[in-house]
């Protein structure tokens, strides 16, 4: 849907980025100064590239060769800025309707803005501000939504307050979303596509599950954040225990909480460090999920860890064990082992709808 292929030199910094963002959430990930905001600004028309092309569907926003460069006003990019940028002299209601009243009732409802309408931005908490900014962008009926680290300035409770809204958005609004973040768990939870930037270049891009389990991406993410993302289906609910049963090609998994409607597809991130391997089926153990898996790869890292690639059914899992354990258990490629996944070890933010 969104096609970006641009070059721009900003002083000593050179941006050279090409990627395609399909419908759903495309996360742009990278450390500070890697060029994330510049990319989003170029899409929104706030930064003019030196070369290249930007298009949404078949609407060309920028094309150097055809000398097309739509003004921001005509791009229909809903931009949620990192610093909210609410108009301080207007009520929340006037802020919201500034760009239009598209789908007003539902936006106010989805984002829970009903009680805020008559307040002024200065009186809002950080989380409320971001929700209003999001609502304002949505009500301008954008063809694409761009969010620049909308949660970065917020503390954990505020983040937890907003993430569900963004998820509902992704599921209910049928426009591509460009989501800038440097938080892997946010990315894993929200994104369908992941673009990783480093020093103005795309170093990896593709479906989020694929990119996150690429070994060469691990150092960009930090060791603790590597892990597989697997699409599953909600197969049942164990009401007494408050658990949800999920199935995938490799078997079934029980997760705490209410994770969607029966039959719905969900995406589950299973961090490599939360997977325990056992050579015998474990007994009398509090971890609910034991999968029979086959080792597909063993990669020695720089530290004391060994990354173990696993196949469960047709899906890929990733486990990280110590070298000592790997040796003691005699792990080898092709070996059949048991993967123990502790149900509580996957926190709510790692479960995406």
């Amino acid at each position: 849907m969104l096609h970006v292929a641009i070059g721009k030199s900003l002083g000593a910094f050179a941006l050279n980025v090409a990627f395609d963002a399909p419908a759903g959430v495309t996360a742009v990930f990278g450390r500070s100064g890697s060029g994330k905001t510049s990319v989003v600004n170029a899409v929104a028309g706030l930064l003019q590239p030196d070369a290249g092309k930007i298009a949404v569907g078949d609407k060309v926003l920028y094309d150097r060769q055809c000398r097309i460069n739509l003004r921001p006003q005509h791009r229909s990019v809903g931009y949620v800025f990192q610093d909210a940028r609410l108009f301080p002299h207007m009520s929340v209601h006037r802020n919201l309707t500034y760009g239009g009243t598209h789908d007003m009732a539902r936006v106010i409802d989805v984002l829970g803005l009903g009680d805020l309408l008559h307040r002024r931005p200065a009186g809002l908490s950080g989380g409320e501000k971001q929700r209003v900014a999001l609502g304002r962008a949505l009500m301008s009926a954008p063809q694409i939504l761009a969010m620049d680290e909308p949660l970065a300035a917020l503390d954990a409770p505020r983040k937890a307050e907003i993430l569900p809204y963004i998820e509902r958005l992704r599921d209910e609004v049928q426009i591509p979303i460009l989501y800038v973040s440097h938080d892997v768990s946010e990315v894993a939870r929200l994104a369908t596509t992941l673009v990783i930037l480093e020093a103005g270049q795309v170093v990896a891009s593709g479906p989020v599950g694929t990119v996150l389990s690429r070994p060469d991406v691990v150092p960009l993410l930090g060791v603790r954040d590597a892990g597989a993302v697997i699409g599953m289906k909600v197969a049942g609910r164990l009401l007494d225990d408050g658990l949800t049963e999920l199935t995938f090609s490799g078997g079934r998994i029980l997760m705490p909480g209410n994770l969607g409607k029966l039959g719905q597809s969900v995406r589950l991130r299973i961090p490599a460090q939360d997977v325990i391997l056992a050579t015998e089926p474990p007994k009398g153990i509090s971890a609910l999920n034991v999968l029979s898996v086959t080792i597909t790869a063993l990669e020695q890292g720089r530290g004391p860890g060994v990354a173990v690639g696993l196949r469960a059914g047709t899906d890929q899992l990733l486990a990280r064990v110590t070298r000592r354990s790997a040796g003691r258990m005699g792990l080898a490629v092709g070996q059949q082992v048991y993967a123990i996944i502790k149900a509580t070890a996957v926190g709510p933010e790692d479960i995406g709808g």
Partner: protein
Amino acid sequence: MIDQLGPAEWAAIRLSLRVALVATICALPVAIAVAYLLARKSFPGRQLLNGLVHLPLVLPPVVTGYLLLVLFGRQGALGAVLYDIFGITLAFRWTGAALAAAIMAFPLMVRAIRLAIEAVDQGLEQAAETLGASRWRIWGTITLPLILPGILAGAVLGFAKALGEFGATITFVAAIPGQTQTIPSAIYGLLQVPGGEGAVTGLVVISVVLAMGALLMSEWLAHRMSKRLGR
């Protein structure tokens, strides 16, 4: 003091108020436009414009008055055009007094407004752009409301200056009672007659009260506005 003011003095007070108000109101849009140009745009001649705006501050007021007379007199380059095309005469009319006052107040107004424009967070304007607002809508709904306190400060400063202007006014439009005699030129005249001091004091007090009143009101308004923005 006040009771020593005759009808001519009261006429001067009314006229001064009218002149200062009209000068301020008419100069304001121009001052805003010039301040905007100076704050936001870079174009050849920018420094020239900046210099031109400050000119009335530097020149002795009488010189400004003469320049106005030369430019806007009936024989003047601009005066002739204004008269021939629009039938407007400025010289020796209260409208000319307003022009003189406006020109003298102009640098003060531009400076105050320019600072306010420079302080506006352009990120807010960008946000409005991405929401599809046209330039004019952005100006009217974002920039203008945000610089209102600065505009207010500039207007009051200009108003005070316009109330006090003498040299350029008396040179450009003389001091015809009821037509172009403002408070300062009435003061000048009263200083020429024996025993005029009482009325002079009355006029001085009145112009100080008017200017200070405007000043206090503007500080109070600015305070309220910034409160409304939640700062």
